[in-house]
């Protein structure tokens, strides 16, 4: 057999080329592509995804996760509570439950929200499968293709694929050390209005933002809530970390300031108890809540009844604030360790945020360093972080990175940051050698780079001390 011959007859003339081409192309490579919904075009895969797959290797110190430390939960306690669920409520725990969630669980949620000064009724709540589901359900309920969502820049990387899947146009508002620049938000809203476009909702993580680690100050919170009311826009307040404050006075959530009129609140048990439970919730204006409930029915009927029983048992038999307290202590030490390590190991050209709570620090490197490429280098030193680009929908964030301090031990935090410091310093040195600029000199004005706007997004304070 001559391999050069195509199976489709006289493969030489121009016409048969055309025929063979369309058949082969369409057939196999595109066999599945033809079946995909249009929105999958927006579900982006990336080099980053393949890199992130490697961060799961056991020898890698991963500062890339958003993981709480679940080792603090005593195993015997888990066993005892599970045994109780089995003994007291076996049949019910194994059964379907109501879509909106079990009443006893809602009482637990009311307690948790009261802890942050929110007054909510059980009827205002919908129990969800993790906080992530709230983002999905809100999009499912509000977003038609091409609708606008306003978010922070950088925004929660986990929301990016959700926004994409619903074919939303996302406008990202820069932040500074005090959170979203609400003045720029108003400008953006005015601009949208001039174009005849009204955003459906504003997505914000106002407290200990993921990924930036910053917190929106009080006056901005008030103004944001006022803007939403004046313009009749919804705000999705994503608040997984509010109770993980390590210093300073708590600020009222947007939901408390607005009393549930335009704010849809997202809460979760993931960071105060366990993400493995996959239990979160939303509190929303009643008409919105009803639609969210219908949307959830289509998605999964109800969240895990078994998990709900466990939480109910946990709240009944233990003081949930105890675990929270010990997590706070643990994470605060890890945060301090990371801040110290950053000061020690990152070159002068780098800046980073100093979060008063939560799980993340956002570091910004010189604009000539691409953190997606840097991750490949860092993985050779067995350390990982999230490249900043994951927190933007438009390719910005290329020289920033998100660092998590809650999921690894203090010694791993130190070692991980030291390794990142090594590879960053190496690239700074290399760049200096290439350009003839001095490496550790005073801060360069961001002149030569087209990516300067990416670097200015979170122009936060330099290292402490």
């Amino acid at each position, binding site marked *: *057999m*001559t*391999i*050069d*011959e*195509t*199976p489709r007859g006289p*493969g*030489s003339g121009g016409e048969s*080329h*055309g025929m*063979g*081409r369309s058949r*082969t*192309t369409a057939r*196999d*490579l*595109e*066999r*599945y*592509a033809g079946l*995909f919904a249009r929105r999958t*075009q927006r579900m*982006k*895969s*990336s*080099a980053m*995804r*393949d*890199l992130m*797959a*490697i961060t799961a*290797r056991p020898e890698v110190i991963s500062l890339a996760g958003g993981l709480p430390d679940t080792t603090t939960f005593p195993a015997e306690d888990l066993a005892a509570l599970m045994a109780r669920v089995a003994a007291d409520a076996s049949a019910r725990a194994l059964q379907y439950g109501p879509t909106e969630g079990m009443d006893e669980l809602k009482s637990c949620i009311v307690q948790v929200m009261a802890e942050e000064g929110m007054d909510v009724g059980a009827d205002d709540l919908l129990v969800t499968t993790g906080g992530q589901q709230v983002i999905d359900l809100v999009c499912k309920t509000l977003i038609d293709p091409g609708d606008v969502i306003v978010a922070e820049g950088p925004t929660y990387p986990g929301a990016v694929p959700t926004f994409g899947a619903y074919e939303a146009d996302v406008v990202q508002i820069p932040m500074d050390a005090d959170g979203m620049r609400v003045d720029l938000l108003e400008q953006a809203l005015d601009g949208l209005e001039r174009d005849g476009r009204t955003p459906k909702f504003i997505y914000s993580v106002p407290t200990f933002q993921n990924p930036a680690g910053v917190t929106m100050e009080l006056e901005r919170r008030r103004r944001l809530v006022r803007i939403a009311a004046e313009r009749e826009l919804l705000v999705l307040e994503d608040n997984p970390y509010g109770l993980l404050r390590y210093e300073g006075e708590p600020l009222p959530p947007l939901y408390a300031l607005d009393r549930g009129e335009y704010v849809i609140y997202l809460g979760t048990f993931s960071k105060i108890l366990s993400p493995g439970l996959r239990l979160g919730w939303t509190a929303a204006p009643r008409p919105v809540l009803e639609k969210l409930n219908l949307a959830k029915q289509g998605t999964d009927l109800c969240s895990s009844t078994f998990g709900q029983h466990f939480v109910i048992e946990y709240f009944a038999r233990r003081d949930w604030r105890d675990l929270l307290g010990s997590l706070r202590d643990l994470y605060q030490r890890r945060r301090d360790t990371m801040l110290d390590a950053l000061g020690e190991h990152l070159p002068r050209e780098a800046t980073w945020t100093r979060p008063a709570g939560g799980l993340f620090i956002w570091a910004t490197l010189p604009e*000539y*360093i*691409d953190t997606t*490429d*840097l*991750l*490949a*280098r860092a*993985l050779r030193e067995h350390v990982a972080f999230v490249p900043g680009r994951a927190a933007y929908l438009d390719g910005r964030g290329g020289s920033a990175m998100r660092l998590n301090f809650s999921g690894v031990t203090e010694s791993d935090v130190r070692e991980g940051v030291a390794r990142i410091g090594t590879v960053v310093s190496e*690239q700074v*040195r*290399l*760049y200096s*050698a*290439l*350009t*003839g600029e001095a490496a550790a000199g005073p801060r360069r004005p961001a002149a*030569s*780079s087209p990516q300067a706007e990416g670097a200015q997004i979170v122009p936060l304070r330099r290292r402490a001390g």
Partner: protein
Amino acid sequence: MSRISVLAGGQSLERQVSLRSGARVRDALALRGYEVTAIDVGPDLVDRLTESRPDVAFVALHGRDGEDGTVQEILELIGVPYTASGPSACMRCMDKVLTKHTMRDAGLPTPDFYAFSQTAFESLGAARALPAIEERLEFPIVVKPAAQGSALGVRFAPTAAEVPAAIVAAFSYDTKVLLERYVDGRELAISVLDGPSGPEALPVVEAIPRGGDHYDFEARYEIGKTEFICPAALDDETTRHAQGVALDAYRVLGCYGFARVDLILDGTTGEPTVLEANAIPGLTETSLLPQAAEAAGISFAAFVERVLDLALARTPA
């Protein structure tokens, strides 16, 4: 021959693609009645191979460890017949600088280039040579890590200002980088498959990025992001010429079994020029070699079986 180990996964940045290639090979072999074991290549590789003693190892690894000859050395050492190229050809393909030197020495076409190690920039002042290089290569210049199978770390530098950052990025993947003349033209992939009468070129695949203007990592592996045309709409003479160049490259590099040669058909001269060769190209549903084989009437299963036969044919009895 009935017991086959499929080696896939490993530690390279192309692990995910390799796992998909490996799974597809495994499925095809299992359907044909072979006794197949899949080995995710790790520290226990030698133990697992000595234990299982397969008749043939099918190497479906991409990137470091698999495509650079390391695993092939181990297989030779413990005497397990394996598919595709031997260690030296793998090394020549994995290192783009070595590939290009080999091509140039043999008088085969490849875009002009200069290569540097990290040390050259850090302690030999190679940066001083950049203006001269830029003058010779002309902008835009393509900057690549020497050893990265996918398009990770490949940058186009349109002006001198972008060159340093592109070089820094490329050094994220390897200690050696390549600065290459950009050739504007059509992107062709020509797979070569050995047969009873020696290596033969399969129908040419042309890659046309859809909606974008560059051939990036995403486009390479995601269904629907790049349009692939096979056989490419080229006249017979151009097709034969390009296939001839690919075959020459295959022979000069010392490949065996199968490989894929990526070329650019220069938009101004109409001549094919070789960018790189892949000793173990992707074998996933969206990969080019299986498509080219199918266009030639060779099913994936038939391809896999032929490659196994070739592996045994190479081994002294």
